[in-house]
């Protein structure tokens, strides 16, 4: 790679500074960033949400989101300083010389136009191609991206194409004019793990075959390890560390980078950690559920022991969340039997006794929607205390503070509204609210999916400590295999509303696997350079 230094860069950012307006105040979101990308090179931009990754990626197209302004620095794309020329002169570069791949293709494609029309538009209008030439190139790209029926694929409307396919179609759209640079902004974050691999393979192939330079934005280190040549780690709008991929993966230098890396070595719960498992607390036998004529759950047999963590894994649409709703009584089963503590569990939440309601709690993925934005933390946690335990006044306040400390917050948070808390803090409040009831079983529905990796690890550690102290059982619904490895005692794998496999974590994660479990596990990227290469090689063989 030493020869590359002499080749002129595709894009060069020098001391880039961008501010954004929020609440009538300008705040710095990119604070003196300098980056260089040379032809054929892929730079990984890594950092947590709010670190300024997307802003920098868009700046490479000379684009600032409404409400943002550049206050200094240069962005040179192929010898043109994009920030020095007016917007009307920047515009022609986009789509032809530099292109963008967004996080959600489903949202980024216009629903009223056919996929092909959207892909060839730039090429026909400004890329100097005829419609036929552009379509021919698009079909070639579809083929390179391994899209089904490449000849006719483009005739479909966006909603007629699956998420993973549409994401690849967006890569084709970016490639249509053979740009010098593509900005990939979290292109696989919204996808299931099994789909993610397919899209990653396609992106890798296209980048290699066409020799295009790229900025690859992600918060997933395992993903960036498969794609990037170099990685820049961002925090608070500044680059804290930049190094070739091998070096940064093997020996990160900056403390922040180390902390990001350390997250991947999550604390592993062992069965011994919280003593022997008690009798089954909840057991489901042959449970099924349907939405109208559509069967969402079928023949579910499931047991959760006292003080045990059962992880429920599967892709979106596999029926995981429906099962969680059914257990807390929000969805009525179509058949089967539910036993709680040895006694039949009424199906509907209204038929359940106050004691049962108290003992089974649920926590949702998004604390933003699950917490009332107009109630203070004190009120949010205080309500179940009054409702279930008749606590009032000083005793209620004392218990509330105790709960706050339990979820590693303190009294200063009690007076705040959810909007004044960070994502991780909000989820802690939601957990404290569930704990206020003193439950024996908590259904956790993707509760860490919306959190950054660092925060996610903290919340998981806390849940494990709480379990050791209180002996509570968790039914942990997730699609994240790493989380399962970290927290589960037993694993239940679901697909198409059925349980494919279940058993102790060690057994499920050790071969031989059921075919679907195999696919699921094999799709989770390793935190190691070369994992994707091995997958591609294995497929070719």
């Amino acid at each position: 790679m030493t020869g590359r230094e002499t080749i002129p860069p595709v894009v060069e950012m020098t001391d880039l500074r961008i501010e954004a307006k929020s609440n009538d105040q300008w705040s710095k979101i990119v604070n003196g960033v300098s980056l260089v990308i040379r032809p054929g090179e892929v730079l990984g931009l890594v950092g947590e949400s709010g670190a300024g990754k997307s802003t920098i990626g868009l700046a490479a197209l000379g684009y600032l989101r409404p409400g943002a302004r550049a206050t200094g620095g240069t962005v040179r794309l192929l010898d043109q300083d994009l920030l020095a020329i007016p917007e009307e002169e920047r515009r022609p570069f986009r789509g032809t010389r530099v292109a963008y791949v967004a996080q959600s293709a489903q949202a980024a494609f216009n629903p009223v136009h056919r996929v092909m029309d959207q892909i060839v538009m730039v090429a026909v209008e400004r890329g100097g191609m005829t419609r036929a030439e552009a379509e021919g190139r698009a079909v070639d790209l579809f083929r390179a991206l391994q899209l089904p029926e490449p000849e006719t694929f483009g005739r479909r409307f966006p909603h007629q194409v699956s998420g993973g396919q549409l994401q690849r179609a967006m890569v084709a759209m970016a490639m249509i004019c053979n740009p010098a640079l593509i900005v990939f902004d979290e292109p696989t974050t919204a996808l299931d793990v099994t789909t993610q691999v397919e899209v990653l393979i396609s992106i890798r192939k296209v980048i290699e075959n066409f020799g295009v330079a790229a900025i690859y934005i992600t918060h997933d280190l395992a993903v960036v390890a498969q794609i990037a040549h170099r990685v820049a780690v961002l925090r608070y709008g500044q680059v804290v560390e930049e190094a070739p991929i091998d070096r940064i993966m093997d020996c990160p230098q900056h403390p922040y980078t180390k902390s990001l890396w350390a997250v991947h070595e999550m604390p592993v719960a062992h069965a011994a950690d919280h003593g022997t498992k008690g009798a089954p607390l909840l057991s489901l036998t042959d449970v099924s559920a349907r939405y109208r004529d559509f069967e969402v759950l079928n023949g579910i047999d499931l047991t959760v022991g006292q003080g045990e963590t059962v992880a429920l894994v599967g892709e979106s649409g596999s029926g995981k969340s429906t099962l969680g709703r059914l257990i807390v009584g929000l969805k009525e089963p179509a058949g089967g039997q539910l036993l709680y503590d040895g006694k039949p569990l009424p199906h509907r939440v209204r038929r359940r006794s106050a004691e049962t309601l108290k003992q089974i709690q649920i926590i949702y993925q998004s604390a933003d929607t699950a917490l009332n934005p107009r109630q203070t933390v004190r009120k949010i946690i205080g309500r179940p205390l009054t409702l279930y335990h008749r606590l009032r006044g000083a005793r209620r306040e004392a218990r509330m503070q105790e709960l706050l400390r339990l979820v590693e917050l303190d009294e200063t948070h009690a007076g705040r509204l959810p909007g004044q808390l960070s994502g991780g803090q909000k989820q802690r409040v939601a957990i404290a609210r569930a704990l206020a009831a003193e439950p024996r079983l908590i259904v956790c529905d993707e509760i860490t999916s919306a959190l950054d990796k660092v925060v996610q690890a903290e919340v998981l550690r806390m849940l494990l400590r709480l379990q050791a102290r209180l002996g509570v059982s968790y039914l942990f619904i997730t699609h994240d295999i790493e989380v399962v490895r970290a927290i589960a005692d037993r694993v239940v794998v679901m697909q198409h509303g059925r349980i494919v496999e279940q058993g102790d974590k060690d057994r499920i994660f050790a071969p031989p696997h059921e075919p679907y479990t195999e696919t699921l596990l094999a799709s989770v990227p390793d935190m190691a350079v070369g994992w994707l290469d091995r997958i591609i090689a294995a497929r070719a063989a």
Partner: protein
Amino acid sequence: MTSRSHPILSMVTSRIGLGLLSLLIVSLVIFSAVSFLPGSYASAILGQNATPEAVAAMEQKLGLNRPWFLRYVAWLGAAATGDMGMSFAGRPVMTVVGPRLKNTILLASITAVIAVPLAITLGVLCARFRGRFIDKFLSTTTLASISLPEFLVAYIVMMVLAVKLQLFPSMAGIRNGMDFADQLYRMVLPILTLLLVILAHMVRNTRAAILSVMASPYIEMARLKGEPEGRVVLRQALPNAIGPIASVVALNLAYLISGVVVIEVVFVYPGIGQAMIDAVRNRDVPVIQACALIFATAYIGFNLIADVISIVSNPRLLHPR
């Protein structure tokens, strides 16, 4: 893609079915409302000095002694063929209402042909140049014209163009014998007034519909593909805003038929609104019924068309998986 039983066909059919059902319910309300009025139809025709025998004979002759639902079915059946019965003045209702309806439709059509394209163009311009002069100017003026009662708009127009400048007649009394150019000349002021009233509503809603689409990620994507802003609005945003635009247009077209009463009265325009006012004054129930039924049909019909347009403009429905 398949020709047999496209889901959109069943959606459109059910929408039309629902429209007809609403119309049926409205007709029932209109029919029964009359039954609650004091006095009978027969005594109304015969006048106050009629003997009970004469009234009974009249009721017999008109079939008024039959059960109400039979009378309703007969009335509705006749109405469906355009026969609205006899007015109290002794003439067929349709000879009273028909020419008036024609005049109203003429006024409405001319206004609509100007207003709809103009409103959509101005709405698009406002959205395209959001926050710039044209947007601020139109936002302020349309807000003002929405806030003013329509009769006031009519009087202002009349005062300026008819009284002060004396360009157009303040009375729009068109007659059958007049040639079309003359009719048009007399209709200028009511048309202008109606334009001011309905343009504002449509411009604002078109602008809002487009701007709400402009917040979608695919709009940012189009900009990141280097598409010029004008085309972003026209080609990416506008097709996604057709549904809401169609429904506000429908509402305004329905208003042009059924809501123009005030303006017709101000300009003495011989439209259906005037006919209804006269009928109300004379307690001519069959004419009132006919007008109400025509208004209801216009409302339901235009909204039905808007519904169908917004269904058809949704590619998810038009091109199912």
